[in-house]
């Protein structure tokens, strides 16, 4: 028996059993110190510097823009070497925490918005506040306020949507409505017209809205696209940022759920949508299954390949024709500087380089939608539709953030709940009530 006990003790020692996690210390104080030592510098005089950058810009146009900008930065500053570590989105999200808390932390990382990745990193004191750099480089002029708020946290990581700025993004994205010009001669101007088009398409035996929800997350797009008709953008933002009094259990959210259930009953979605994958669903739309697809601007390239000139893009039409534009959307993963970086000033200059006017031009040329304003404009009608929609959303301050940013587990909860609600296994009241109680579990403990 003594031997077993000795073995267990040995194993415990080997396993490094102490309190897990680093020392958070006083984040507010550390943040202030970091800001005081933040300077806009002439990178050319910074000596030989190697910046390690973890990003997830690995697909098509995203890969091209980052490769081009990295090369241009190193050409301008031959004393800087950028060591790029490219990972897929999922890989990056699952390994980032370990990487930035380790001794050899990268200098610049893409830390996804929201409480799960960015909030936790801020709470752990692992990211550097960028406000001093932002004012030195003029970053606030590049973005509408909601785009900056999405990258803000209080230094203790508890308050989301205000406080210090921890990153800036390159690209914008909108979830809107793609349509097939061959079936929609005149894009609907009001929600009532949109519903008329849906009924007409159903009458013609088409699939009015191509929709595949087997992957669970696409349902968030359907729900929020309809939610925006009933709920004010600020109400949704307050909920996402967990501000006092915000609730999911509202009549507006119930109306949205009821509307979606009505559409399911009327057969406006792809048959078996809960058992249809996301990719097959948009592929069906691309083959002409029906007039509409609710989807994100990341599908633009693939859909242009499928439909060519027939492809159009619009925002979900408002209740009253001509009302200010609103849409679910946001920005690409923000570039952030780690607290352990030895060259934060060079890192800031690099991030500035990735988001300035020249970068916006590179982004357009490589088929991306820059988050910052630009005079460049893409070729292709649908691409121009997207640019116009982005502009109008920024003008009317109509961007509404993803609901799943709100709590660490809300993604799991809302994706599962939307599947249940759409299958008619939950009433609109149960749907909003259950999600509210999940949400309260978090806000109560934060």
């Amino acid at each position, binding site marked *: 028996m003594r031997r077993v006990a000795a073995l267990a003790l040995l194993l415990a020692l080997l*396993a490094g059993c102490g309190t*897990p*996690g*680093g020392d*958070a210390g006083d984040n507010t104080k550390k943040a202030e110190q970091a800001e005081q030592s933040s300077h806009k510098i002439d990178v050319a005089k910074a000596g030989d510097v190697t910046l390690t950058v973890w990003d997830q810009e690995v697909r098509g146009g995203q890969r091209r823009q980052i490769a081009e900008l990295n090369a241009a930065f190193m050409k301008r500053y031959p004393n800087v070497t950028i060591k790029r570590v490219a990972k897929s989105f999922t890989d990056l999200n699952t390994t980032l*925490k370990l990487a930035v808390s380790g001794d050899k932390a990268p200098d610049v990382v893409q830390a996804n918005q929201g409480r799960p990745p960015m909030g936790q990193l801020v709470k752990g004191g692992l990211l550097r506040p960028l406000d001093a750099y932002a004012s030195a480089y003029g970053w606030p002029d590049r973005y509408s306020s909601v785009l900056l708020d999405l990258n803000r946290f209080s230094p203790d990581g508890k308050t989301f949507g205000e406080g210090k700025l921890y990153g800036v993004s390159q690209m914008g994205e909108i979830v809107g409505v793609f349509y097939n010009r061959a079936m929609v001669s005149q894009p609907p101007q009001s929600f009532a017209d949109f519903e008329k088009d849906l009924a007409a398409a159903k009458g013609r035996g088409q699939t009015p809205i191509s929709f595949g929800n087997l992957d669970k997350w696409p349902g968030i797009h359907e729900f929020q696209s309809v939610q925006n008709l009933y709920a004010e953008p600020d109400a949704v933002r307050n909920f996402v940022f967990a501000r006092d009094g915000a609730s999911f259990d509202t009549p507006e959210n119930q109306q949205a759920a009821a509307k979606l259930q009505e559409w399911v009953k009327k057969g406006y979605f792809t048959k078996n949508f809960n058992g249809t994958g996301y990719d*097959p669903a948009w592929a069906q739309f691309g083959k002409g299954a029906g007039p509409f697809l609710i989807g994100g601007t990341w599908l633009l390239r693939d859909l242009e390949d499928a439909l060519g000139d027939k492809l159009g893009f619009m925002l979900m039409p408002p209740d009253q024709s001509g009302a200010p534009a609103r849409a679910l959307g946001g920005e690409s993963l923000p570039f952030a500087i780690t607290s352990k970086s030895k060259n934060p000033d060079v890192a800031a200059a690099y991030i500035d380089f990735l988001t300035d006017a020249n970068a916006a031009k590179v982004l357009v040329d490589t088929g991306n939608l820059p988050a910052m304003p630009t005079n460049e404009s893409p070729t292709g009608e649908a691409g121009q539709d997207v640019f116009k929609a982005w502009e109008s959303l920024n003008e009317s301050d109509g961007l509404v953030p993803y609901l799943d940013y709100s709590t660490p587990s809300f993604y799991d909860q809302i994706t599962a709940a939307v*599947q249940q609600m759409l299958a008619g296994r939950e009433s609109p009241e149960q749907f909003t009530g259950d999600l509210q109680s999940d949400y309260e579990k978090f806000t109560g403990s934060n």
Partner: protein
Amino acid sequence: LRPPGEPRRVAYLYLLPGFALFAAFVLVPLVHAGWLSLFAWDGVTPGEWVGLHNYGTVVSDSELRHAFGHSAVLLVFYAALPIVIGLVLAAAASRAPIRGLTAFRTILFLPQVIALVVVAVTWRLIYQPTGWLGDFDLALPAVGLVGTWVAYGLAFVLFMAGVQKIPRSLYDASRVDGAGPVREFFAVTLPALRGEIAVALTLTTIAALRNFDLVYLTTSGGPGNATSVPAFEVYQRAFRGGDVGLAAAIGICLAAVIFLLTLSINRVADRAART
């Protein structure tokens, strides 16, 4: 002088390399996971000691209870069904020599060789027109059937190997005594395959309980939470939800369940072998 065969201390030295590897990659992570399961920890900020609270959550959280329940259902599809199918096939093959048996064996065994990711992606496509994966009642059996398809070839090949070592004289004797195919199966084939059944049951049970890839790639635990399983919850809670302590507790519980089940399978098989 020590007689040959007498245990000597030096024997431990021979065990050392194997034990060192086992300790480094199995025991130490296991103990570490057990330790983490006693904390509320998001993976970044300092953890907070909560004792056995996470284990309480494993029992009280209805989503997690359901996940373990789904595993029990999957046991039928991953372990019971493949063994029944494997036995029937092996019994049929033992009755008469089959032309091209090697080819059959290879084909039936193929699902075992293919990476599970490929299996999952392929079956997702196969199920696409049916919509079963999006149906709250059919999704779990649909995922289970994929497991059956993967595992029955393994069971069949194991049982065929076992059948081939049964002396033909036993079959001849049973036929002389007038046993039909069913009687012959229960009197001769089944008892002789006890060891193989225990092996097949152990392997398939482990595969059923630690199932992650098939669920992750076909349904992501949906629709709703109709197909979530413990291993999937471990991943979700640790890497998405940032609740590493609870994830570790689920993992430890899952490991304990697997350990107890396989232990009892082998106990039963050993006892049956002695009688």
